[in-house]
């Protein structure tokens, strides 16, 4: 049977029930990956655009303060609560923030799994593009032509 490159520490983290906290100390760093942030929005109503860019700005700012770009930002409970539409008292935030961080840290062990045994999810170029294009009844300059969808009435 195949074996997967999982460190014994991670196995301990998720398996050994009494030792979960011990393993936590070992599994603190998250996966090295870059985070792409969409920064341009082309067609939106001005209000939505405004909101959108405010949001992306905030996210971007929260990442830019990260000294190590390879680390995922730990959960900001107030912001998550706002996204999830749940009002939390300051006491609740204080109580659940460390717990959530602790759990998220442990869940980060997942990102250390090497996906070698999984199907590569990579796009391939289909060679016979002209064949596909030939079956399109009306085609012009990379566009499919159809009657007008929106009418003035």
């Amino acid at each position, binding site marked *: 049977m195949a074996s997967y490159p999982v460190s014994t520490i991670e196995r301990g983290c*998720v*398996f050994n*029930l009494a030792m*979960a906290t011990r393993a936590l100390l070992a599994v603190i760093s998250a996966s090295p990956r870059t985070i792409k942030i969409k920064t341009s929005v082309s067609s939106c109503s001005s209000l939505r655009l405004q909101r959108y860019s405010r949001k992306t700005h905030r996210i971007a700012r929260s990442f830019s303060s990260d000294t190590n770009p390879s680390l995922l930002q730990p*959960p900001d409970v107030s912001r998550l609560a706002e996204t999830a539409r749940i*009002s939390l008292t300051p006491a609740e935030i204080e109580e659940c923030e460390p717990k959530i961080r602790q759990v*998220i840290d442990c869940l980060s062990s997942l990102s250390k799994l090497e996906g070698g045994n999984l199907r590569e999810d990579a796009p391939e170029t289909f060679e016979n593009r002209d064949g596909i294009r030939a079956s399109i009844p009306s085609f012009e300059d990379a566009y499919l032509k159809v009657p007008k969808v929106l009418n003035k009435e």
Partner: protein
Amino acid sequence: MLSTLHPPRSLTLLPLRRFHGPKTIVSAASTSPATTTFDAASVSPPQSQILNTRRSLLSGETTASELAKSHLSRIRLTEPQLKCFLHVSENVLKGAQEIDQRIARGEELGPLAGVLIGVKDNICTEGMPSTAASRILEHYRPPFDATAVKKIKELGGIVVGKTNMDEFGMGSTTEASAFQVTANPWDLTRVPGGSSGGSAAAVAARQCMVSLGSDTGGSVRQPASFCGVVGLKPTYGRVSRFGLMAYASSLDVIGCFGSTVADAGMLLHAISGYDKFDSTSSKQDVPEFESQFLSVDSLESKPLKGVKVGVIRETIEEGVDSGVRSATQEAASHLEALGCVVTEVSLPSFSLGLPAYYVIASSESSSNLSRYDGVRYGNQVMADELNKLYECSRGEGFGKEVKMRILMGTYALSAGYYDAYYKRAQQVRTLIRKDFKAALDQNDILISPAAPSAAYKIGEKKDDPLAMYAGDIMTVNVNLAGLPAIVLPCGLVEGGPSGLPVGLQMIGAAFDEEKLLKVGHIFEQTLKGLSFVPPLLANVA
């Protein structure tokens, strides 16, 4: 008759086997693992309550009304301490009288006629409170029955009431209910497990004959283990989930509790099948399980000859309570004595299941629970602005654990985090499914403990989420793979006034519940010398 209830220390003990030392356990075939002969003075095998009900109603030995009355009086006596039910139906006796009238008229009876059934509170019951043990749904009475409940009623079953649970199924102890904490009938200072703790404890305490639960990561199997009853988690898709309040839709199933394998199997048969209201329900045939439940006298000496059983190595390693480990090994020996070929198998991806499960379950719950917004049903906290209404209704309506999981799910699904958590978790899920498939290609069933320990104390893990989540290690992988599994009591470890039950988990190939029920039934009926009736019921006639 259960006359009085005492604090646990003064409860009369059942004539269970004595303990010989601090670490001694009593378990399957502990007298002689190589043979199937046991003490002559042993306890007789457990009998199906569904079949007994059917037999005694048809013979006129008892009436449905008498059965209902005796169960209701047991509920009255034991509920103050156990707190299994959030709501007891006022129509139990009426339902029973209708069955009796049908018998008197000589009408045909459904296979569940007169059977008293507890229903987990996250399964909708028309006109009866259905709250999922959450404040946000306090006083909510759905205008319809879940398909499983509808089928039970059509077959003559009587819903006794709604059982307590961890809010929306999020928990492993039933302590996360917004309304009450259920006690374990084996030791009132311990948890019954969760999240279907009320359904498991109610069957263990014989408050009802069978019950429905739901299992997202082990919520039927782990409480079955803690309470010493049978818990059956069907294949994903076997049972319609229409009317089950969604927690993590790619994992959720409705499952069954009984005091015997036959009862759990017959209840499963009653609720299985395709339903146009649940597009994930399967059109696979539902076999007639009843033919598997042969009487112990009709069994040959090696009734399971040639059945290949794989013991999952990763589940009997370090980190698992030694008593639980030996009980599992004794159970393997018992299966061997019955003719099974038992070998060890390894599931290399096993330990990855827990983090993958918590990512997937939290993520899906953050989406599923967005429906509780205080607008369409449930409790509303009025505000002058719509977002405030949502936030306050949800903030006041949800309990701590639910809020935490919604927030974790929101985090894992955030842009930029998705690849590291949710996508990874889905990849792990593929690995787990592959490993199970390889192991089940070589074995008929796989076995493991149902939980790393027996029932622990109320409050012990309440503020330590990681310790509590770690207890789900034995069960979550089965949900990730969508496979069926049954948990049945296989031994006792020291603890409480007369020992604590330990459950054995048997895992089968998709849609092969029949094999699990066959092996489980024979295992149970030949497991002599042990009785899984909690001390609470010791002086019940």
